[in-house]
């Protein structure tokens, strides 16, 4: 209450600052009693000078004393909930008279007053239009004083996510991308979804999505945009490391492996296993991994993951996909009629108990990466065409290794022996192998098949088959197929940091290369993979190629490469941040949005780049090429899938829940109609799933014991898998919040400055140390009350001993702070 009779709780001052609350307090020099006014933005208030107060208030006729508020500094506001999320269809509001509300497809929170909804939609849409007009491209971020909005324009549709202003810009944008990704995954392109489903239905689905996401996302996860649900697995820190016990030669270090030095030793670093419950035995995780592998041998099935009570037990999927699959429960609707999925109803009756199959939509990158996946087929086919056999034999020589690599699951693979058993030998005779083969061949036979294209889904990416074929005509031997083989497997295992000794596979693969050069009517690689990327290499691969000069080779060919690659690039939506081929390179790139060239400037990783990325790139391109080296018609079909504007590819999501355990598999679309295949998947996994479920239930502790007194906080972020390891408690203390604040700042800087390696920041209350490599970020804070220092540079200052302490303390968590 202000002395002059104004009585607002909040007083709007000319500059737009909001002041709240006032109590009679201070006298201005000499005369009046005035009030203390609390500025919402505390920091500013504390620094405000009398003249500024005077200026602020002068016009209103207030004289305002300034009053320093001591100790009211909020260290770090919780990132809280999202403030707003909405989808707006501008095409519905074209005419002057059209009410803004007509364009609002969805608005969260739904209880927002309609006026406010209209205000936000209308104003933001207007600003987006205006900025696009001036800049030639729409804004991706609109910031206000207390809110920030991530913006995505998709044709007439406008997606907007409003977050707390404390959340770093980049996270806000990534969240929105993720949300859109979820929607697309389960509903297909927006226009189509809203055409086929009622707005209410979709809104209900949104509500469920958002509720689940919000419930499961902690501040820390927001800062890193790490995989959802990890916070449920409080124990993350100890689990992955238990795998070290698996064997010396199995460098399965999910966290640790990220360090480059250890990478060099790693045959296969597979760490899809995200966060598994602490006490889970390694054996159990291997089981899960094996289940996934087994399923993969079934027709159509590409890859999958296993969840237990919402935690990831094992996954073969890239983070973006894992995140989407994690939301399955929320997405599932009874009687759901997804676009083009009319067939679903018919089949549902036929599905085994607890099994659901729903159509889903993958981005092209995701689809490519899944199909690129060598999976079993390559090696398992009993009577493969000549080339395949050769290839397989070549592979077989490496069998143990490759095999391991295909067994991405958490623990990577166990001993070669076990895999040997399950694999080349036994496999050939297996019934489902042939089925599998059939499936692989299918595309060729049914060029137009699987995709019964819904409206809007039809357009083919590859407009010119010829051009794509020409690329394929490349002299593959120039592309160092050897590593390609190697790469293929590793890339199949997604973010696999596979650094192979070039020796072993080199010569052998060379043979296979020359083989693949032969014009074969039915190339063994007529995997979905090859066709999917047949004509065009994935964009990241292209970029990397150009980096390595490999692209030049292509360009030497008369006018071939560009037609294929360009439309591709154009059609592509923003690349997901999931590193496809060369994980760290790619992730760097997408995160920092810097030209690739700059990556080379990171001196400390240069060497690594050389050794890793180069082979990767080449092989990726070659794998694409070689696979579609044969008749390309089929390749186009597969590759072109529904390359609608949204660039989405339809697939099936098979889920089988056994109590708390859920097996989710992504499969090519024919799965839905292929009862035999479904049966096969079902039966091949049922017993093991039951076993696994029991095992998990027995071994998993009920409640996590509250962590004993911590003496430090740490957070370890795996940039490749988007996984977090941390020891922060559920309820953050002030010191924890200070840690979070520092982490969010430094994380943003690491993303923007590729050469930034190590950082220590300190304020009066705390000091936080961070270091970063292309594959990981580590943050460390000591909780012991630091002796107050002056801030004057002094070697005795505890802040500068943090690096050593971090290295020492984190070792026991298996974290190698570089």
């Amino acid at each position, binding site marked *: 209450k202000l002395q002059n009779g104004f009585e607002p709780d909040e007083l709007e001052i000319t500059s737009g600052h909001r002041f709240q609350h006032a109590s009679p307090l201070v006298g201005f020099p000499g005369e009046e009693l005035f009030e203390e006014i609390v500025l919402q933005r505390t*920091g500013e208030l504390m620094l405000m000078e009398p003249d500024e107060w005077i200026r602020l208030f002068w016009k209103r006729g207030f004289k305002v004393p300034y009053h320093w508020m001591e100790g009211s500094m909020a260290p770090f506001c919780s990132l809280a909930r999202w403030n707003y999320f909405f989808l707006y269809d501008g095409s519905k509001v074209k005419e002057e008279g059209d009410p803004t509300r007509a364009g609002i497809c969805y608005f969260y929170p739904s209880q927002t007053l309609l006026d406010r909804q209209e205000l936000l939609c209308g104003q933001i849409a207007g600003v987006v239009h205006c900025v696009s007009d001036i800049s030639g491209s729409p804004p991706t971020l609109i910031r206000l004083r207390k809110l920030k909005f991530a913006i995505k324009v998709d044709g007439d549709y406008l997606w907007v996510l409003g977050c707390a202003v404390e959340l770093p810009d980049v996270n806000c944008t990534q969240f929105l991308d993720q949300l859109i990704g979820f929607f697309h995954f389960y509903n297909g392109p927006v226009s189509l979804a809203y055409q086929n489903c009622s707005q209410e239905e979709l809104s209900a689905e949104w509500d469920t999505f958002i509720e689940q996401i919000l419930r499961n996302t902690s501040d820390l996860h927001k800062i890193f945009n790490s995989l959802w649900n990890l916070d449920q697995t409080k124990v993350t820190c100890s689990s992955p490391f238990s795998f070290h016990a698996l064997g010396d030669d199995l460098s399965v270090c999910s966290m640790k492996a990220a360090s480059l030095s250890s990478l060099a030793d790693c045959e296969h670093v597979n760490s899809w296993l995200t966060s598994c419950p602490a006490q889970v035995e390694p054996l159990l995780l291997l089981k899960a991994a094996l289940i996934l592998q087994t399923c993969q041998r079934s027709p159509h099935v590409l890859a999958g993951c296993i969840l237990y009570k919402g935690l990831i037990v094992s996954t073969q999927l890239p983070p973006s996909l894992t995140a989407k699959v994690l939301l399955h429960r929320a997405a599932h609707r009874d009687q759901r009629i997804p676009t083009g999925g009319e067939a679903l109803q018919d089949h549902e009756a036929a599905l085994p108990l607890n099994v659901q199959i729903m159509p889903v939509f993958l981005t092209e990158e995701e689809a490519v990466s899944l199909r690129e996946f060598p999976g079993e087929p390559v090696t398992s086919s009993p009577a493969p065409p000549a080339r395949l056999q050769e290839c397989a034999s070549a592979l077989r020589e490496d069998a143990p290794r490759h095999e391991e690599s295909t067994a991405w699951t958490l623990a990577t693979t166990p001993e070669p022996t076990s895999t040997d058993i399950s694999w080349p030998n036994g496999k050939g005779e297996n019934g489902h192998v042939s089925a599998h083969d059939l499936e692989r061949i299918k595309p060729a036979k049914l060029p137009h098949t699987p995709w019964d294209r819904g409206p809007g889904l039809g357009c083919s990416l590859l407009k010119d088959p010829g051009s794509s074929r020409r690329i394929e005509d490349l002299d593959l031997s120039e592309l160092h197929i050897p590593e390609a083989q190697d790469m293929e497997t590793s890339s199949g295992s997604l973010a696999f940091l596979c650094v192979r000794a070039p020796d072993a596979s080199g010569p052998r693969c060379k043979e296979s290369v020359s083989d693949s050069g032969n014009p074969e009517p039915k190339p063994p690689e007529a995997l979905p993979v090859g066709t999917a990327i047949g004509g065009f290499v994935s964009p990241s691969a292209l970029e990397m190629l150009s980096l390595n000069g490999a692209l030049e080779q292509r360009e030497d060919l008369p006018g071939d490469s560009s037609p294929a690659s360009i439309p591709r690039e154009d059609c592509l939506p923003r690349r997901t941040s999931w590193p496809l081929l060369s994980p760290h390179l790619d992730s760097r790139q997408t995160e920092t949005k810097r030209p690739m060239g700059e990556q080379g400037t990171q001196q400390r990783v240069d060497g690594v780049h050389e050794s890793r990325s180069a082979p990767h790139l080449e092989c990726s391109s070659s794998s694409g090429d070689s696979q579609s080296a044969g008749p390309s018609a089929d390749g186009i079909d597969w590759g072109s899938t529904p390359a609608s504007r949204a660039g989405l590819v339809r697939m099936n999501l098979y889920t089988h829940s056994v109590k708390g355990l859920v097996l989710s598999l992504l499969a090519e679309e024919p799965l839905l109609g292929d009862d035999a295949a479904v049966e096969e998947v079902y039966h091949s996994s049922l017993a093991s799933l039951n076993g696994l479920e029991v095992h998990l239930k027995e071994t998993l502790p009920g409640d996590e014991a509250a962590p004993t007194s911590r003496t430090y906080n740490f957070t370890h972020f795996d940039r490749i898998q988007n996984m977090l390891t941390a020891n922060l408690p559920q309820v953050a203390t002030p010191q924890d919040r200070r840690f979070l604040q520092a982490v969010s700042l430094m994380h943003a800087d690491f993303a923007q400055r590729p050469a930034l390696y190590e950082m220590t920041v*300190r304020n009066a209350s705390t000091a936080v140390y961070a270091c970063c490599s292309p594959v990981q970020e580590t943050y460390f804070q000591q909780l012991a009350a630091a002796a107050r220092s002056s801030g004057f540079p002094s070697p005795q200052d505890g802040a500068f001993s943090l690096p050593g302490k971090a290295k020492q303390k984190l070792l026991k968590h298996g974290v190698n702070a570089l």
Partner: protein
Amino acid sequence: MKCVLVATEGAEVLFYWTDKEFEESLRLKFGQSENEGEELPALEDQLSTLLAPVIISSMTMLEKLSDTYTCFSTENGNYLYVLHLFGECLFVAVNGDHTEGEGDLRRKLCVLKYLFEVHFGLVTVDGQLIRKELRPPELEQRIQVWEHFQSLLGTYGRLREQEQCFAVEAVERLIHPQLCELCIEALEQDVIQAVNCSRERAGEEALHALLLVHSKLLAFYSSHGASSLRPADLLALILLVQDLYPSESTAEDDDTQPSPWRGRSSQNIPVQQAWSPRSAGRTRRSSAGTETDSSLPEEYFTPAPSPGEQSSGSTVWLDGGTPPTDTPQVQMAEDTLQTLLPGSPGPSSPRRIFLDASVKESYCPMVPHTMYCLPLWPGINMVLLTKSPSTPLALALYQLLDGFSLLEKRLKEGQEVGSTLRSHPLMGDLRQRMDKFVKNRGGQEIQSTWLEFKTKAFSRSEPASSWEEKLMDWKDFLLVKSRRNVTMVSYLEDFPGLVHFIYVDRTTGQMVAPSLSSSERTSSELGKGPLAAFIRTKVWSLIRLARRYLQKGYTTLLFQEGDFYCSYFLWFENEMGYKLQIMEVPVLSDDSAPVGMLGGDYYRKLLRYYSKGHPAEAVKCYELLALHLSVIPTDVLVQQAGELARRLWEASRVPLL
């Protein structure tokens, strides 16, 4: 691709500035959409058309949501828009070429606003006042005003990129104790005292005098009666002078400016010199209020230094004030001046500027001063700040207005709703009459004293400038010295691995750093090649990051980037050099006023804030930024930083007089 726009709530353009690329993009945009034959709308109209939706929308949001836009960015930060609302005016900065970050743009806006205030007083609080100043109805006049600020913005941009002192926003002193002493003596006796003793000064009183070599401060003297000059104001003065007489390197892309001579400079040492706030002499204005309390012109806000007389003023000024008329450089400057259109404010004509002051222990923001800039030789300028006899009016007016608004409130408060009507017109009437009176009387007074002063203050009868002759001997030395103020060589032996450092005394707003300048004619120790450029980039980037973290409350920062360790320390000391415990520094939002001096004077606020906890002692604040090779272990690095800070502190303690 840069653009700055200041607009009213109604999207009326009050000021704009664009670079060539932006102008070109506008031309394309409007050229395409318009018919061939039609003439393109004026640039300001194009801008207004384009940005009006954003401006209107931000006002709508403010009204409806109590929140408003602060920043837009497009994919990959290709385009960045920063919006800042000052009073009723929206300031917008756009960058489309990745050369400026959000912090840079916001800083630019805040500096622009500060420059408006320096020129016009407290106008930024009121939409009408600022409109009156920035958008005079007469087109020609408007163009003049806009050109003036466009030029200032350009100068500021160049200085910020090239001069360390503008990068960190602190004054850099030319370190040469003997010379400094000589100059201070001269400023005191031959300038301040001479002027103030002159019977022809028309009531004007010289307060401060300073000598600048390029953008470095050589000597500074304040009269006993003067209140202290804020470092931020001093830096702003340097900016104004650099705009009038650009140094060579900063003027490279600006051929239209006179004197092509100035080298530029970049480093300084904080020396405790004549710099001091003369707190003793603040008793002066005690009687001023009585005779003037009724005459408070609106001109306070619109000081209108009658343009017609300015050119004549400058002529007189040159005749009388420029010492060695035989030197060709001066001749040139004079020629340039004479080519200016009559009526346009010549570069060296006196300017009314508004600076903060404390009068009789009471704070008075924006007290009008008159600034005279006298180019001695190219690259060397003398600046004289005076207050006119009517200055006390400012204070009285300030207080009166305060009283008025209070009275107004009282009246409103004391009466029921029905009677507001009655009280309001009454008040309005009172105020109006007051204003009229003030306008007539005060305006005349100001004008006459103004004229008098200009014609007489620096007439030929001024005491001959013997000191200027002395200074003449030093001229060449000074010009060279300004480019090699501090050299890194002298530190290499004791601090192996140290590549560069900047040490700032935030209490006095002064900095010391080895020279990094490299221009066409001069080169730093690092030469002119890529290495020098690289180090510069590193240093600028360190400054940016350090500010970013300070804004978020971190006072120590150490990071390794590429082959370098970069470190930043901020600490407080008492007068004796005893290190005080650090305390929690406020965490500011991204859209808060930038960390610096020119746009909001962060450090002054910080000091004030810190001092609350140390009422008994004078608190000083220091910053050190250092760049080391990354092979240096961190403990050695920190050790060195401490050692370096101590040494620089010692150096700054050496008394000069």
